């Protein structure tokens, strides 16, 4: 979707202003939010792709003003409601009105290190060979779906060169909406910055793009 999250090349956000000796969390609630989000992910209702799409779907003015953990928390509340594990009334009351549906999936403290160190690899085995070879020139298709997609808007229509084949990976667009993993070959594609932006020397940009995002030229 052409959402507020697609920030590459946008202007007017001001200086980056890195903070010296930045703390890991700026408030206790941020630390709790991180932990709650990760714990709820273990319930198994949604994939990383569905959760990314929930964040992208936050109203643009809110997305751009929210601190990042508020973006996470806002999307988490939407996901829990969508999957029937939270009601607006419960959140207002601060108390559960019904028991959870998947308490058996609850991540307990002794499982945390194992879950975090295992992760969730997205590589998959597919029967088909990659259609695009290293060195091939490819154009990024002009895809503008209302759903989830991992093509940054600034690369649409631009021509790049396949730099590496990354194997097949879960396709985010389908996986975000419970239409299955539908794994596809993934490629690292290199673009010339001057071609993308119409200016600037000595800059190249690389992005990892799924096969169906690309067409040979």
């Amino acid at each position, binding site marked *: 979707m052409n959402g507020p999250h697609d920030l590459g090349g946008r202007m007017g956000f001001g200086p980056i202003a890195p903070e010296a000796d930045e703390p890991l969390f700026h408030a206790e609630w941020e630390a709790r939010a991180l932990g709650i989000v990760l714990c709820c992910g273990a319930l198994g209702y949604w994939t990383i792709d569905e959760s990314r799409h929930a964040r992208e779907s936050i109203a643009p003015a809110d997305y751009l003003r929210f601190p990042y953990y508020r973006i996470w928390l806002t999307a988490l509340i939407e996901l829990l409601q969508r999957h029937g594990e939270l009601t607006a009334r419960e959140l207002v009351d601060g108390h559960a009105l019904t028991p959870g549906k998947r308490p058996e999936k609850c991540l307990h403290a002794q499982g*945390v290190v194992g879950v975090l160190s295992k992760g969730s690899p997205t590589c998959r085995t597919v029967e088909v060979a990659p259609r695009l070879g290293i060195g091939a020139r490819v154009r990024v298709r002009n895809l503008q779906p209302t759903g989830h997609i991992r093509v940054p808007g600034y690369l649409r229509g631009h021509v790049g060169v396949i730099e590496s084949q990354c194997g097949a990976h879960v396709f985010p667009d389908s996986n975000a909406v419970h239409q299955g993993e539908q794994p596809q070959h993934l490629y690292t594609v290199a673009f010339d910055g001057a071609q993308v932006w119409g200016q600037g020397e000595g800059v190249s940009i690389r992005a990892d793009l799924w096969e169906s995002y690309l067409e040979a030229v």
Partner: protein
Amino acid sequence: MPHDHDHHDNDLDEMTALTRALETVLVEKGLVDPAAVDAIIETYSNDVGPRNGASVVARAWTDPVFADFLATDATAAIASMGFTGRQGEHMRALFNGAGVHNLVVCTLCSCYPWTVLGLPPVWYKSPPYRSRSVRDPRGVLAEFGTILPDDTEIRVWDSTAELRYLVIPERPAGTEGWDAERLAALVSRDAMIGTALADVP
């Protein structure tokens, strides 16, 4: 109906109140274990952070066999040092070298190599960095005080899939004979994102 709940009647700020209410509901439902939340915070506060990545870089500087391993299969090489897991499932090492400097961003969200760098700083997740680093990387680097020669190519890596990138900065001059532990102290988080170079002793 009586208002016997506590979060409306105190001076907690909005986000603290919301987060507490959510955690309370989820704990009552048996879906979240507060001790697991504590353990997650503990893990990223104490165990998983940029010292992991610095040890990978320092080893690559001192061990050519490991540097080759890192270049050909970064996921396995980094796993061989014990760093595996969430947001590091598929790794690629980007070696800075003569005339080439690498810079990592995620313009679409906040993808970041947690296993080697821990949690990202606020600026990495914020609109100014995400918008400008692909369009004006030299300007971004200058804001971090990193000025490169005009003829250095800047390669910007936009983390659009599940590959996570670790920049391997160039080993600074004047460190001949240093061991990996001493070298690791020269490798900052920002040097492994690409907004800085390795510190000079």
